[in-house]
């Protein structure tokens, strides 16, 4: 198992988080009652496709949304503090310091007119009152930690002079600047080549183990999840539909959406003559959320119960929860295999 330690207390507890936005077409709830814990030292994956609310969840944890546009409900507990009710100056102390974040596109996340040394130093100096010289020494240390070669030279370079992989390392260096306890990585390697992705992901794992830093990894790539995550939360249209540790998720996925996702991805050893599994239909719009189970419109197992009542997130196996009326029967009777092929 990657990086799990002895004590299993959560360092972050998200409790029934709801984030809504006011749009010209009405109120849209991007995150609808999401709850999960991040245990000490683990790498938690949040998987889902566009519109599922995974990025919105991450941004809500750090309260990155303009509070006039976004309405938050629920609670987020970190080190005895409830983050959603902190006053802005207190929240500022948490952001980048205790909890940091790296984003998908490193080029637009870095300021093009400042050197990377400058930007990383800024990340440090915002939170720690140390001298500039000490800050720059720390910058060099961080650059080495994230595997950037010739850091003395790089420290004076600008973002556009670096490759995509290097920029992402710089972002990670900034995230580590204050020895955060939690790092939220929002699709950190989606924009990178697969060989660079491999390097970045292995660095994240290494940092998780070395620094005992909790990681929330947001991605749509199940391959990355399988390699790196300890536990996984699967989201669909603003809700958590399955939560399990990585072993169980891949050996016995309970929710039809998870099963469908796994079976529709061509794998390196799949039978090339068989058509890929298809999840019919498309993700409904957040403006027109269907009645009952949100996945019912595309689920081959859906019946009237599914279409009229929303299933709760129930525990069907140790450490594994799913939001499906038929989770038990589907997996037990192997109906999964029959209906899906």
């Amino acid at each position, binding site marked *: 198992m990657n990086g799990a330690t002895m004590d299993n207390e959560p360092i972050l507890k998200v409790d029934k988080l709801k984030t809504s936005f006011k749009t010209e077409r009405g109120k849209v709830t991007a995150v609808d009652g999401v709850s999960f814990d991040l245990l000490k030292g683990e790498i938690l994956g949040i998987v889902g*496709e*566009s519109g599922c609310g995974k990025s919105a969840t991450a941004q809500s944890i750090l309260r990155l949304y303009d509070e006039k546009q976004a309405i938050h409900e629920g609670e987020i507990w970190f080190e005895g503090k409830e983050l959603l009710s902190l006053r802005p100056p207190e929240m500022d102390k948490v952001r980048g310091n205790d909890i940091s974040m790296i984003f998908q596109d490193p080029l637009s996340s870095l300021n093009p007119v400042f050197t990377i040394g400058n930007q990383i130093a800024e990340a440090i100096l915002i939170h720690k009152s140390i001298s500039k010289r000490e800050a720059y020494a720390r910058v060099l240390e961080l650059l080495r930690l994230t595997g950037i070669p010739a850091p003395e030279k790089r420290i004076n370079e600008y973002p556009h002079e670096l*490759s*995509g*992989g*290097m920029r992402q390392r710089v972002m990670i260096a900034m995230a580590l600047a204050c020895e955060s306890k939690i790092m939220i990585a929002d699709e950190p390697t989606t924009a990178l*080549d*697969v*060989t*660079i*992705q*491999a*390097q970045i*992901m*292995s660095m994240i794992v290494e940092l998780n183990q070395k620094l005992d830093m909790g990681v929330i990894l947001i991605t*749509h*790539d*199940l*391959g*990355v*999840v*399988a*390699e790196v995550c300890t536990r996984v939360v699967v989201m669909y249209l603003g809700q958590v539909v399955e939560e399990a540790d*990585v*072993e169980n998720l*891949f*050996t016995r996925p309970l929710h039809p959406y998870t099963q*469908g*996702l*796994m079976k*529709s*991805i*061509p*794998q*390196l050893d*799949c039978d*090339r*003559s068989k*058509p*890929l*599994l*298809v*999840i*019919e239909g*498309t*993700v409904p719009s957040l403006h027109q959320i269907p009645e009952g189970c949100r996945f019912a419109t595309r689920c081959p197992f859906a019946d009237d119960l599914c279409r009229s009542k929303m299933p709760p997130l129930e525990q069907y196996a140790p450490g594994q929860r799913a939001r499906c009326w038929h989770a038990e029967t589907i997996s037990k009777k192997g109906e999964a295999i029959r209906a899906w092929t």
Partner: protein
Amino acid sequence: MPGHETATHTLLEVKGVKKYFPVRGALGTTVQEVKAVNDVSFQLKRGETFGIVGESGCGKSTLGRTILRLTEPTAGQAIFEGTDVFSMDPTALQTLRQDMQMVFQDPYSSLNPRKRIGAILEEPLNIHNIGTPRERTEKVLKILNTVGLQTDHYYRYPHEFSGGQRQRIGIARALMMDPKLIVCDEPVSALDVSIQSQIINLLKKLQRELRLTYLFIAHDISVVRYISDRVGVMYLGQMVEQAPTDAMFANPRHPYTHALLSSVPEPKLHAKRERIVLRGELPSPLNPPSGCVFHTRCPMAKPECKKMVPVNKELSAGHFVSCHLY
């Protein structure tokens, strides 16, 4: 394998294609050249799918565009059914466009936002004066159906559709003139995972039903493996290895192919293979390394790799490699 008669007829032969982009200096003279495609050759047989993989900067997209002459080639030949596309005059090229089409990566910018779908799809027929107006509309409706869309979509605008549907429209547009060859440039990369399989299955179905030939360019190796009969691996403008799919994946010969395949994260447990980490960074295509372009990062590099360009050798049936190890 998809059931069809043995496709032995070579539809497209690409020979020594080069595409260099000039970098202009202060006075407008060419100061440097970006060698995006640097001597690529391969053959494409009727009815098959040739997949091209590689990472950013390898030149695969440029190769696709050059073959279709969407950008003028610097050197080489692309012989389509006996005629060299690169030396055709504009009129002949225009007619040839009916046989060679492209599906683009970005479903959001590949359709004119101000035109209705019907107009977008009828356009190729208008350009080439095919059929009467009624026949054109008929054909559009038929093809809409073929790609899984509905009649009433004819009057809608692109922004009313999802990414997957727009990609279907893009595919429909490519099909309008009954082409023989379709170059698919990252057709599913911009789509959600659960939609990708829909489009991939559609492409496969269309290939069977309409006897299409695909040049499938993508960076997602699993997808390329799934849909291709043969695969070519590109690095810094060159095709370092090409082979029938099963042979390539069972027995990759080129060190870069090895490294590439070992980096793919697999959605299954305990799939940790020995991961080959490449040292160094991707060299700039302005100044590709001497000798073998891969030698600066190759774990198996020998002194001769820096000095001599490797010869393209056929190691077994249809399996070509450019590497000094062989």
